[in-house]
C-alpha cells in the first residue's frame, strides 16, 4: 500500500476512535462496539492472512523493520516447501531497487532477513533514489556493467532488459509458488513475458483512475447533472459549461477537467493517453500507439488527433482551465489544483484519493469520488481506417507497476539461480503481498484476492472507502479493453519528445491538432530509426503478445 493511502485510512480510523471516545453518543458507541466485536472475531481467525494483518495492527502506527521481519518469517511457507534449510549456504546475491520514502528495498531487507537465515544465502543491496534509477539502469545496460542479480523494475523497462536478453527466464516451479493466476487481468501475460517466456514476479499494480468532485454532480449542483460524466465528450462539455460559474466549495471560479499542459519528464504523456485511449484503443486491437507491423506511429491518426483537439478546444475556451494552466504539470493539477479545490475532474494514480483527506492542503476530502477512465462515443479503428460510432472504454494502465526480475548473471550457476528466484518468489508471495497491500509498502493491490473487501473490513478498515477507491482500481485492472503500455526499449524517450511537441502545439506554435500530432509522429519515427526499427517491431509485437 502507498504510504499516503495508509495515512488516509489511518486518519479515518482516528476519526472513528474519536467517535468512540464520545461517551455521550450512546448509540454511536453501541454501533462502534458492534464493529469492534466483528473486528475481534476476525482477528481470532486462525489463518495466516488474518495473522499477518495483525502486524502491527491497523491503527497501531506504521510498521518498521521488526514487523517486516516478522511478516517475512510467517510467510516463509513457500520457501520451506521448495528449499532445504541451509541449501544456499555461501551463495551471495546482489539486489538493486529503490529507496523511495524508506520503503521498497527497506521492506525487502526485512522480508528477506528470515529467508537469508533459513536458506543460508546473503544479499547485498544497491539502493537508488527514483530519479537515479533510470539513468543507472540504462547506463548499466549500455556499458555492459550489470552488477545485480535481482532487480526491482517497472514493466515499461522490460523492453530494455528482457528485449536485450539481460533477464533470466522464470523457472517452472515459481508460478505455482506465487499463485500467478491470482494476478488481476492486465498483469497476466503478455505483461511480464517476452517472446512467450515469463520473467516477472509482480509485486505492484498501476493505473489511472478518474477522480471527481461529488458536489459538482447531483440535484441542484452547478453542472445540473445527476451523475459524473462517462465520456470525454461529456467531460469537455461540462468543462465549457462551467465557465463563469462559482465553485460550491471554495467560492472561486469553477473549472471542469484539469489537463496537465506542461511536460513531466515523459510522465505527462500518460495524461493525453487517458483521452486518446477512449478514442483510439479499439477493443479488437491490442496496439494503439504504433502499428505493430511497421512501427509507424498511430499518434497522428484521427483518434489521437481528436484527443489533442479536445485539449485545444478547452485551451481556446477561455476560463475553462484555471489561469496559467499551460504551466501546470501533472503534479500541479493533482496537488496544487484538484486537492486545493480548483477544478472538478482529474485523472491520476491512486495518490489523489489517498491524499484527499490527509494532506494539509486538501480541501476536497469529503467531496471526492472515483471511477474508471471515461470512454468515448466513437472509436477509431486503425485496421479499417474508419470511425465506429460505438461507446468505447479503455482504462489506461499507466506504468503497469513494479515487479521483481532475475538477471542473466545467475545463468551457469544453478544454485545461485534457484536462490535468486526463491528470494524473488518470497517477495511476490500471495500472503505477503496482502500485507504489503494493506500497510505502507509503496505498492498497490494487484491480485484478485486483494479485493476481498471482507478481509479488509475484518482487519479494521473502512468498508465504504475501500469499496469506492479500490473498486475503481479493480474495475480498471480487469477491464477487457485496458490500454496496456508498450514495453519496448526507450518508451520514455517517445513520451518525452511527445511532451516537447505537445507543448508547442498547446502554445499555438503549430497550425492545429493534426500538425501537432504529425510533429510527434515524425519525432517518434526518428527515435525508432535510431533505436532500430526492425528490433522495435519485433519487441513491440512481443510485448503485445503477438
Amino acid at each position, binding site marked *: 500500500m502507498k504510504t499516503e493511502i495508509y495515512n488516509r485510512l489511518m486518519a479515518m480510523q482516528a476519526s472513528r476512535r474519536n467517535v468512540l471516545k464520545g461517551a455521550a453518543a450512546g448509540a454511536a458507541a453501541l454501533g462502534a462496539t458492534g464493529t469492534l466485536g466483528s473486528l475481534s472475531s476476525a482477528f481470532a481467525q486462525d489463518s495466516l492472512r488474518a495473522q499477518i494483518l495483525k502486524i502491527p495492527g491497523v491503527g497501531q502506527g506504521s510498521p518498521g523493520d521488526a514487523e517486516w521481519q516478522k511478516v517475512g518469517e510467517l510467510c516463509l511457507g513457500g520457501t520451506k516447501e521448495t528449499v532445504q534449510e541451509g541449501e544456499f549456504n555461501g551463495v551471495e546475491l546482489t539486489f538493486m531497487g529503490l529507496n523511495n520514502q524508506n520503503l521498497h528495498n527497506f521492506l525487502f531487507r526485512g522480508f528477506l532477513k528470515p529467508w537469508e537465515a533459513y536458506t543460508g544465502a546473503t544479499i547485498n543491496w544497491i539502493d537508488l533514489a527514483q530519479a537515479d534509477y533510470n539513468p543507472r539502469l540504462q547506463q548499466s545496460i549500455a556499458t555492459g556493467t550489470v552488477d545485480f542479480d535481482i532487480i526491482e523494475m517497472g514493466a515499461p523497462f522490460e523492453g530494455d532488459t528482457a528485449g536485450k536478453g539481460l533477464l533470466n527466464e522464470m523457472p517452472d516451479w515459481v508460478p505455482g509458488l506465487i499463485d500467478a493466476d491470482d494476478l488481476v487481468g492486465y498483469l497476466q501475460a503478455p505483461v511480464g513475458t517476452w517472446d512467450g517466456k515469463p520473467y516477472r514476479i509482480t509485486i505492484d499494480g498501476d493505473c489511472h483512475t478518474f477522480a471527481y468532485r461529488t458536489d459538482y454532480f447531483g440535484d441542484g449542483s452547478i453542472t445540473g447533472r445527476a451523475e459524473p460524466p462517462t465520456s470525454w465528450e461529456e467531460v469537455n462539455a461540462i468543462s465549457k459549461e462551467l465557465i463563469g460559474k462559482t465553485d460550491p466549495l471554495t467560492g472561486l471560479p469553477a473549472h471542469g477537467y484539469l489537463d496537465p499542459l506542461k511536460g513531466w519528464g515523459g510522465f505527462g504523456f500518460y495524461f493525453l493517453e487517458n483521452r486518446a485511449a477512449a478514442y483510439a484503443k479499439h477493443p479488437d486491437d491490442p496496439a494503439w500507439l504504433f502499428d505493430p507491423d511497421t512501427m509507424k506511429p498511430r499518434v497522428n491518426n484521427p483518434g489521437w488527433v481528436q484527443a489533442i483537439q479536445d485539449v485545444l478546444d478547452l485551451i481556446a475556451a477561455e476560463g475553462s482551465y484555471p489561469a496559467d494552466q499551460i504551466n501546470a504539470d501533472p503534479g500541479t493539477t493533482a496537488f496544487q489544483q484538484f486537492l486545493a479545490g480548483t477544478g472538478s475532474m482529474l485523472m491520476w494514480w491512486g495518490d489523489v484519493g489517498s491524499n484527499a483527506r490527509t494532506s494539509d492542503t486538501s480541501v476536497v476530502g469529503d467531496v471526492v469520488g472515483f471511477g474508471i477512465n471515461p470512454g468515448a462515443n466513437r472509436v477509431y479503428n486503425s485496421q479499417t481506417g474508419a470511425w465506429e460510432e460505438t461507446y468505447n472504454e479503455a482504462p489506461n494502465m499507466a506504468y503497469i507497476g513494479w515487479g521483481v526480475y532475475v538477471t542473466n548473471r545467475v545463468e551457469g550457476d544453478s544454485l545461485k539461480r534457484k536462490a535468486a528466484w526463491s528470494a524473488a518468489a518470497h517477495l511476490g508471495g500471495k500472503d505477503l503481498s496482502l500485507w504489503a497491500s494493506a500497510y505502507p509498502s509503496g505498492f498497490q493491490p494487484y491480485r484478485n484476492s486483494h479485493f476481498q473487501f471482507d478481509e479488509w473490513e475484518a482487519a479494521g478498515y473502512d468498508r465504504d472507502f475501500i469499496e469506492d477507491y479500490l473498486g475503481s482500481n479493480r474495475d480498471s485492472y480487469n477491464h477487457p479493453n485496458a490500454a496496456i503500455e508498450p514495453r519496448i526499449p526507450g518508451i520514455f524517450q517517445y513520451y518525452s519528445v511527445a511532451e516537447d511537441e505537445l507543448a508547442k502545439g498547446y*502554445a499555438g506554435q503549430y497550425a492545429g491538432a493534426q500538425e501537432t500530432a504529425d510533429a510527434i509522429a515524425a519525432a517518434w519515427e526518428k527515435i525508432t530509426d535510431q533505436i532500430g526499427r526492425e528490433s522495435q517491431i519485433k519487441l513491440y509485437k512481443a510485448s503485445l503478445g503477438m
Partner: protein
Amino acid sequence: MPAAITKEGDQLHIVGADDLPESRKRTGRWLLIAVSAFLVGLFVLQALFRAGATDIGFQNWRPVLYMFVVWGIALGVAQVLMRGELGKRALFVLPAALFVASMVVFPLLFGLTLSFSNWNLSSLEGRSFNGLDNIRQMWGDPFYWNALKNMVYYVVAVSAEYAIAFGLALLLSAEIRARKFFRVVFLLPLMLSPVAVSWMVGKSMMEVRFGPLANLARFLGWEQPAFFSNPEIARATIMIMDAWTFIPFMMIMLLAGLQALPKDILEAAKVDGASAWQTFWRITFPLMLPVSVTALLIRIIFKLKLADIIINVTAGGPGGGTDSVTSFIFREYRDRSNVGYGTLLAMVYLVLIVIFMLVLLNVIGRVMRRQDQGAP
C-alpha cells in the same frame, strides 16, 4: 655547489644542464621507450579485445589506467636520468600536467568521440560512428535553435542586471544607515540554491491562485496574474528570478572594486567642483571598468549555464519560450538517453561559448585600450 647550478647575486639559482654520462641518459631513454611501448601495447590489446578481435584482454580498462600511472612515474624517473637537475625541475610540473591531461584532455577526447556517434542507450546495437549526422540533425533541430535564441535574450538581460548591481553597490558603498545589515541582506539571495528559488518563488509565491506575488499583482490591477502563461512573460519571469539570485554576486564584486578606488582622485574631483554625475561618469565608472568586465564575464558564463530554474519551473515552456540550451540538452540526454546527439550539442555549445567569450574579451580590450589612449 654542483656545476650545473650557478649563483646570481644572493638569491637566484639557475638550473642548467648537467654533465651526465651517456650511459645514464641511454638508460633513461630506454626506460621511457620500454614503458611507453608497453602502455601503447596494452592499450591496443585491450582495444582489440573490446572490439572482439582477440580473446586476450582484461574484463575492464582498469589495468590500462594502472599502466598509465606506472608510465607517469617512469616518465619522471626518465626525466631525471636523462636531464639531471633539469629533469628534477620538471618533476615539479609533471604530476600536475599528467593529472590535467588525464582529467581534462582524455574526457574531452572521449566526448568528441561520442559527439560523432549514434548512441541511444536503448539501442540494441550500442554506439556507432555516424560522421556528421549529429551536426546535420542539429542544423535542422528547431528546439536547439530556439534555445540558442533564448540564450541571446538571457545574456542581453545581464546588462540590466549589471546596471542594478552597480546601483546597489554604489548605494552600499555610500555612508548610509545600517550599511552592514543591508550588505548581508542583499547577499542572501545568492546563498539560496536556484532549486530552492524555483520552488519558493516560481512554484509557490507566483502560484496563480494563492501565491503572495500573484495576490500582489492582482491587487495592482492584473486580473489574471499568470507569470508563465505566454512565452514573453514567462521568459521575463525566469530572467527576474535568475537576476534576483545573481545580482548580489555582481554587486559584491563591484562593491569590492568601489572600496578599492583611490580616495584622493575622488576628493580631488570634489575639490574641483565636479557634480555627482560627473564624478561617477568621468572617474568612478572608468576606474571600475576592469572590475566591471570581470564581473560581467563571470556573470555571463553563469548565465550561459542557466538550467535549474527553467527545468524546475517551466520545463522549457510554454512552447519552448523559456528553454535554455542546457535545459534542452538535459532533456535530450537524460529523458531521451540520446548520448551521442546530446554530447554533440554540448560540444557545439562549448565552442560557441569560447568564441563568444574571445570576441567579447577582444572587443572590451579594444574599448579599454582606446579609453586609456584617450585619457590625459
